[in-house]
């Protein structure tokens, strides 16, 4: 174990992954600096380009070189420019809030993954072409060096140095940096900020595609695994504070090599499984750490997205009194009560709807009410489901299990929320996403946490009708809670905080306490939803609480109208109904398309309905 030669061999083996991660970080940093958008859709672009290259080379028999030129230099940048023109340009022109931009990214991600699954199927593929053949050269001292790793490392360094030189010494570089510092001022100085952003997206898509093509031969290619792998390399860009290229390169390489070295350590004993989990998910750990470390001073354009403002533009009260709201609530109640009149099979199909509605309602409370962009509500639901499973396995009465879980999760929300809630804007979104990734990787997917769990409904809820009625009762309590929070003193404090945080401080609102309260209540609501979700399926299914699924739920709420409780309930119906009526995954494609079109639909569907109603 103390053989230094072995350490070098492992380091060399880690260079391939490290170079890809560094490249991903460089792409994210440049794209962010030129467009102001953290490219959460990177994983989708990567997997799309990787599949396209395989299609051209393996299925159509193109030479790898020509395929790579078409995929990386034509298709990927073209996709980037298209994204700027159709998705992000309109958002920028109306100065959309950070939450809307996040949602548009999620929409693009989901759409691209959906497209890949629809075109090429979901079966994992092993016959992926490599850009550089995986030959090895023997170094003096007997160490094996992979040619492809060296080529990747060289590519990363050349790209980083070239970017630095362009930024420093060319007119375009200076104009791009001007846009990065202040897009409005740059426009006044005659710089076409839209064109700079298009260049940023073209480059971001190019690197995303390259990362996908480089990583694909190292893993089995399937539509869901690769995107998550690429998204975990967000850690690199976050560690670089979305600004510094040298740090991005260094962190990417360090993580790749570090991951490789950890395989070599491989301790036994009780800590073994945990350390194995850390090793295989080192990038998730890094994302969590990098997001939680305080951000310090961020200057320029970055400041507006990262620290500025919060959530999403609010719909406000509908004009003409509460008539519209009453109608919406009536439609909701009717939709929710109808299944009680159906036969057993019909109820079974919608059993997850109230549970999902509770989770979506927690997003309405936290993001719509409190203005906190939290991407982690899905994992609170997962914790709830897990707790329900643990308690139910211990034969605790279900009502008690629900109460204990909800209280426990509210407490957990307060605890987790403490280091989180004073973050704002994109940083908060990142921290909560990192939490979701961490919980998913280290709890939900690990056998030590989830093996041997059984979830059984108690006898009096065994029937679907009875259980559905019980779900409705819990949802009703949740809805009353949300309505109560948004009314009265606390509601006014929330609105003040959401609209102008400094002003709320000045007006005597205890901002951290209010935020923490909302965060804890949201966690409790989501947890209740998770309990019901586990009970409805009578199983704990980790894939339901995947971080990407959480992103999809967040996007669904925003598409429906972020401060509309009615919208959340109807969105739950739509998500479940679309998948049941067509093919699984259809809801993701629809939500993705609508979310990607967020630039054209301010206020979501609820906003659109209100505008139509107002004439």
């Amino acid at each position, binding site marked *: 174990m103390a053989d230094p030669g072995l350490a070098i061999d492992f380091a060399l083996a880690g260079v391939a992954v490290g170079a890809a991660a560094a490249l991903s970080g460089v792409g994210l940093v440049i794209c962010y600096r030129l467009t102001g958008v953290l490219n959460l859709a990177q994983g989708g672009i990567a997997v799309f380009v990787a599949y396209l290259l395989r299609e051209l080379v393996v299925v159509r028999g193109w030479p790898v070189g020509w395929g790579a030129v078409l995929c990386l230099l034509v298709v990927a940048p073209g996709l980037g420019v298209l994204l700027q023109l159709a998705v992000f340009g309109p958002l920028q022109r109306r100065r959309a809030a950070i939450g809307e931009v996040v949602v548009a990214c999620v929409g693009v991600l989901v759409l691209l993954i959906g497209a890949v699954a629809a075109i090429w199927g979901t079966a994992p593929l092993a016959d992926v072409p490599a850009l550089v053949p995986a030959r090895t050269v023997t170094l003096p001292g007997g160490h094996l060096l992979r040619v492809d790793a060296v080529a990747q490392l060289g590519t990363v360094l050349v790209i980083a140095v070239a970017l630095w030189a362009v930024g420093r010494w060319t007119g375009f570089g200076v*104009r791009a940096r*001007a846009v990065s*510092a*202040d897009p409005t*001022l740059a426009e*006044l100085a005659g710089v076409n900020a*839209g064109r700079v952003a298009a260049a940023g997206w073209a480059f971001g898509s190019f690197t995303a595609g390259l990362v996908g093509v480089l990583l694909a031969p190292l893993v089995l290619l399937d539509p869901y695994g690769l995107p998550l792998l690429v998204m975990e390399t967000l850690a690199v860009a976050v560690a670089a504070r979305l600004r510094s290229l040298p740090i991005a390169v260094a962190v990417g390489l360090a993580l790749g090599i570090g991951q490789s070295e950890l395989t070599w350590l491989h301790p036994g004993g009780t800590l073994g499984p945990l350390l194995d989990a850390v090793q295989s998910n080192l990038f998730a750990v890094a994302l969590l750490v990098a997001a939680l470390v305080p951000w310090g001073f961020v200057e320029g354009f970055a400041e507006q997205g990262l620290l500025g403002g919060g959530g999403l533009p609010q719909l406000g009260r509908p004009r003409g009194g509460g008539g519209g709201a009453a109608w919406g609530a009536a439609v909701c109640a009717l939709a929710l009560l109808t299944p009680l009149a159906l036969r057993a099979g019909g109820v079974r199909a919608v059993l997850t709807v109230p549970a999902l509605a509770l989770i979506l309602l927690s997003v309405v409370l936290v993001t719509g009410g409190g203005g906190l962009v939290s991407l982690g509500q899905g994992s609170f639901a997962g914790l709830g489901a897990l707790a329900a499973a643990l308690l139910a396995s211990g034969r605790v009465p279900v009502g008690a299990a629900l109460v204990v879980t909800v209280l426990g999760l509210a407490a957990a929300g307060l605890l987790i929320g403490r280091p989180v809630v004073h973050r704002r804007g994109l940083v908060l979104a990142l921290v909560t996403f990192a939490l979701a990734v961490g919980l998913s990787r280290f709890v939900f997917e690990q056998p030590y946490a989830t093996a041997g769990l059984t979830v059984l409904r108690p006898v009096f809820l065994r029937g679907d009708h009875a259980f559905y009625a019980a779900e409705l009762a819990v949802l009703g309590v949740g809805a009353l809670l949300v309505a109560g929070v948004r009314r009265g003193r606390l509601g006014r404090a929330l609105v003040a905080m959401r609209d102008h945080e400094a002003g709320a401080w000045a007006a005597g609102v205890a901002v951290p306490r209010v935020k923490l309260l909302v965060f804890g209540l949201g966690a409790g609501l989501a947890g209740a939803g998770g309990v019901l979700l586990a009970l409805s399926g009578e199983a704990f299914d980790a894939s339901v609480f995947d971080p990407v699924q959480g992103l999809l739920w967040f996007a669904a709420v925003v598409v429906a109208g972020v401060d509309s409780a009615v919208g959340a309930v109807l969105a739950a119906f739509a998500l479940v109904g679309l998948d049941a009526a067509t093919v699984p995954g259809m809801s993701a494609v629809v939500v993705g398309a609508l979310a990607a079109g967020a630039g054209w639909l301010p206020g979501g569907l609820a906003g659109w309905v209100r505008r139509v109603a107002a004439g």
Partner: protein
Amino acid sequence: MSAPTGGLAAELRGVRVRYGRVDRLHGVDVRCPNGRVGFLVGRNGSGRSTVLATLAGLARPYQGRVTVAGRDVTALAAHRRAALGVVLVPARRAVFSTLTVAETLSLSGPPEHAAARFPELTALFARRCTELSGGQQQLVALARALLADPSLLLLDEPERGLAPTVVTRLRHLLTDRAKAGHAVLLTARTLPPWAPDDALVHVLERGRLVWLGEAGELRQG
């Protein structure tokens, strides 16, 4: 109207602008004749900055027309208007935080030309704009705008934070630009004493134009 538009660098006609649900300009007419200094005078909230933003293309009117040199530019983006010679220096945050002074100036032309006009800039060329004092930042912003040689220069409270000697030089520069046939439009709370008698003064009140005339008339009346 038979008034030749060739004499106008830019014009707003019946412009209404809305930020959110609040109307900021209620049908305003503003004229920027070539060869004269113009003033937008009014209290805070009277709409002075919104008029400048509308001329520069940062604010889009929902009614009314914006013309530059007789051409309708109502739908034209800000960077295209800058290319047509309409250059705005905002009142605050008018420099790029991550660029050096030389890089900022190079956005509009060779930095040495600006140094000829403002020699004190030469020593600052390698410094980042955020390392400068407020007055120095304002000077950099003004120097960059003048370097673009705009046909219409829009300045929002340009004298804020400037040293008195620089203010005097700036006033001369502006009147000289007007004499050379260019248009200049400034905002101010009250009409400054140095304003030439033939300066065109727009007095704004709560988003409406309440008085239009020459500085000399305003002083007499």
